[in-house]
């Protein structure tokens, strides 16, 4: 991909260059151009390339592009867009402007866009496009092929042709491949494959992602409740959704939401400070609880040496089981009850086993360390016992929480990845500290 374009070249050469660069790459270059360069680029670039670039631009740059165009050219550009891209552009405009741009479209298309705008963000229908081809089941092979070659527009998806009956209900699909191979005397109905893989208009995007991914589909139809096909979702859009989902989970577990590399320091601060504040405030609870154990702490100061270790290890094992569970939820591994039970059982057993091993090791370490350096009144063995038991129990509980909390959140339709936030950390901290100092109080006071 070219890092920049040299605008000293002749018009003819520039035109050729734009032609050779992919729309996505042009869209990366565009925001960094001078106004005069933008103008020249938009004058020279071919119409279909302009649409390719336009759909990849951020909204603000899209408006910028439009500002360089005559009304006629604007209309041409808007009309050339795929319905899902067009919807995305229109969505970000205010009502007045929306109307302006919708005027450019044919009545049918404008209606379609208005319909697309009504779907909620997490519904499969919100990412569908309406550029597909249907044929009717009574058609002959020849009529079908004719319809495809004569009526399909540049944007239409034709890998799969959808077949509807006279009531416009979807009855199946035909692979374009089969249609091309077919002899003209073959009957169309025999070639129709039942379409088992579809989503309904208010199904979630997740369902569409799974279907496209699991069944290696390049496109799936979206149906309304009367079984009319109202759109299709294509695999390239699914890819974008999938990436967004993973980025989202990754960012959530690290408490950085909506992060992009272009954010400035101040913007980053603004984004993260609320979380950090919540964490500090929640720590106040931890602080208050700890102050209840002040007597124990003053009597057995040596306990404090191992406090970070206990909190840390409990946090670590919790992060592990949380990550496994979130990934599992993501891949829909727990769609059946017995699978969920199995997962919980497995993770809890692993948690118990590993907590036990680490508790033992911590016990050994503390005994050794204190036998060498002990200055307190308690025996190294007693303290090591407290630390060992605290590590074992705090880690076990934290690993259980790491499994159960995200699963519970998911059941109540709350995003399970939010279980990685400061609230969970604080709860884990409190449990670990109460256990640790509680056991110590019982043992020593």
């Amino acid at each position, binding site marked *: 991909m070219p890092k920049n374009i040299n605008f000293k070249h002749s018009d003819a050469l520039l035109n050729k260059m734009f*032609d050779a660069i992919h729309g996505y790459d042009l869209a990366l270059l565009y925001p960094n151009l001078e106004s005069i360069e933008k103008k020249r680029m938009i004058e020279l670039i071919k119409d279909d390339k302009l649409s390719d670039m336009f759909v990849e631009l951020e909204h603000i740059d899209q408006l910028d592009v439009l500002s360089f165009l005559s009304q006629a050219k604007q209309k041409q550009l808007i009309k050339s867009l795929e319905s899902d891209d067009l919807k995305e552009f229109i969505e970000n405009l205010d009502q007045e402007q929306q109307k302006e741009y919708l005027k450019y479209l044919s009545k049918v298309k404008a209606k379609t866009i208005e319909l697309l705008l009504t779907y909620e963000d997490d519904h499969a229908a919100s990412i569908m496009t309406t550029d597909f081809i249907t044929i009717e089941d009574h058609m002959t092979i020849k009529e079908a*092929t004719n319809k495809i*070659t004569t009526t*399909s527009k540049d944007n239409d998806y*034709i890998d799969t042709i959808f077949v509807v009956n006279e009531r416009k209900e979807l009855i199946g699909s035909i692979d*374009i491949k089969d249609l*091309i*191979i077919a002899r003209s005397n073959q009957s169309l109905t025999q070639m129709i494959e039942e379409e*088992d893989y579809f989503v309904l208009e208010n199904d979630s995007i997740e369902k569409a992602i799974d279907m*496209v991914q699991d069944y*290696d589909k*390049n496109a799936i139809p979206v149906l309304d409740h009367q079984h009319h096909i109202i759109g299709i979702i294509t695999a*390239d859009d699914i*890819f974008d959704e*999938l*990436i967004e989902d*993973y980025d989202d989970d*990754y960012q959530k*577990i*690290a*408490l950085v939401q909506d992060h992009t590399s272009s*954010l400035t*320091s101040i913007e*980053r*601060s603004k984004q*993260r*400070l609320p979380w*950090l504040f919540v964490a*500090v*405030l929640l720590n*106040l609870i*931890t*602080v208050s609880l*700890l102050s209840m154990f*002040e007597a124990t*702490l003053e009597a057995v*100061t040596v306990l*404090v040496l*191992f*406090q*970070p*270790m206990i*909190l*840390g290890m409990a946090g*670590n094992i919790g*992060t*592990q089981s949380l990550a*496994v569970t*979130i*990934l599992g939820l993501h891949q829909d591994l727990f769609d059946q009850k017995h699978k969920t039970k199995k997962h919980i059982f497995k993770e809890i057993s*692993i948690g118990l*086993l*590993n907590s036990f091993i680490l508790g033992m*090791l911590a016990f050994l*370490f503390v005994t050794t*360390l204190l036998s060498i*350096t002990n200055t307190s009144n308690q025996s190294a063995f007693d303290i090591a016992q407290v630390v060992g038991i605290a590590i074992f129990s705090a880690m076990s509980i934290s690993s259980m929480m790491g499994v159960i909390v995200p699963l519970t959140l998911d059941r109540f339709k709350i995003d399970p990845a939010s279980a990685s936030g400061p609230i969970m*950390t604080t709860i884990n*901290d409190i449990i670990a*500290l109460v256990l640790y100092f509680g056991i110590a109080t019982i043992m020593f006071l």
Partner: protein
Amino acid sequence: MLKDLLQKDKKQILNELQDIHGYDLAQSFLELSDEEKEKLYKIVNNEVLAEIVSYLEPDVGASVLLEFDLVKQKDLIENMEPDDAVDIIQEMDQDDQNALLSVLDDKDDVLSLIHYDDDETGSAMTNLLIRLKADLDVKQATKILIKQAPDVETISTLFVVDDDDKFLGIVGLKKLLKAKMPTTIFELIEEHPYVFDKDPIIETIRKIRNYAIYEMPVLNEEQKLLGIVTLDDALDIYEEEAQEDFEKLAALPETTDKNIFKTAMHRIPWLLMLLAISIPISLVTSMFEEILAAVAVLIIFQPLISGSAGNVATQTLAVTLKMLSKDEGGVAKNSLREIVTGMINGLVIGLAAFGITFIFTSINKSLTDIPLTIALVVGLSLWLTVLIAPMIAVIVPITLKLFKIDPAVASGPFITTIIDISAISLYFGLATLLIGGV
């Protein structure tokens, strides 16, 4: 699904199997008992069995494949798509691999794919595609299309090559169908992005996504067309990579083991390492035992300090790792921004902690008689640790990368533990300085 189906008679089974998607077959195959599997093997032909095996996880597929003799193995492999077959073969032991590879036909596509590394584009390639020579006319091209179509996945993109098999561009199916004689293919050619077989697969996937391409042509260094990488394969590979990133951030080793004990043992090394690096924390703290014994209230605020610093470090780490793994430019600029962010956040959080601590210790008079000093120590330490945390979280992964170690080794838990050490030294150190020999 398969379990119930196997109760029926053979004819019915075969009939119904046709309508079930390979993915569903593979999912329900896993629930079968050994006897049921045997029964299934006897009934279905190699084509169906190959489909089931290729939809299983590659390591499971490999172990199923190895249940059969070499002749059947070979036949199954030939019924799979080459890229799926390669994934499965690569999961086998060296001996099994060699045995199987030696019986395959010399021309088998599997042999040309298997020498690619897992992270090279060539490893995800398939050569089920339609090639057209540029000098064909539309009618000849359509004939070839009709003849070859049954053997390929999709025909929406047709790939144009010259006489030496060099890639020239593509022709969209729609364009070909609409074209009238005497147009030649050469007149219909469109430029199209392509990748090379030795390119990193991650980069190819990124291009497929960015350019929204269903079939990405793969060329060798002589520009000859070798095959294509399809969007559905790219999706699967992307998901694997994303999961790896996520697992690494959580210090979770990659594993698909069903066995509880084995999975536990898999995760133990990480936990052990984390335990080991938290030992210095105890040692550092023990150096400050004196002041701790004198001013026990300090202990109460310790989780606040190491917790906040840990949160901040994890944030910066996640951002940095993502950049490093995507090989995005501007790591230096990003690091600087992260550090400045740390300074701002440190100041704000430090001030807040100062206030909170002061109020808290003033109310609970029994805790200390020097609330202002304690609040100062807490606030100041918090500011400094939140300021240092992003620096460590930037420096550690970048240093690892310089030494060619996977930067993701520095997981969230790892970095938090490192931060703990510096946070505690700072906190108790400052306390010693400010409160001194009280």
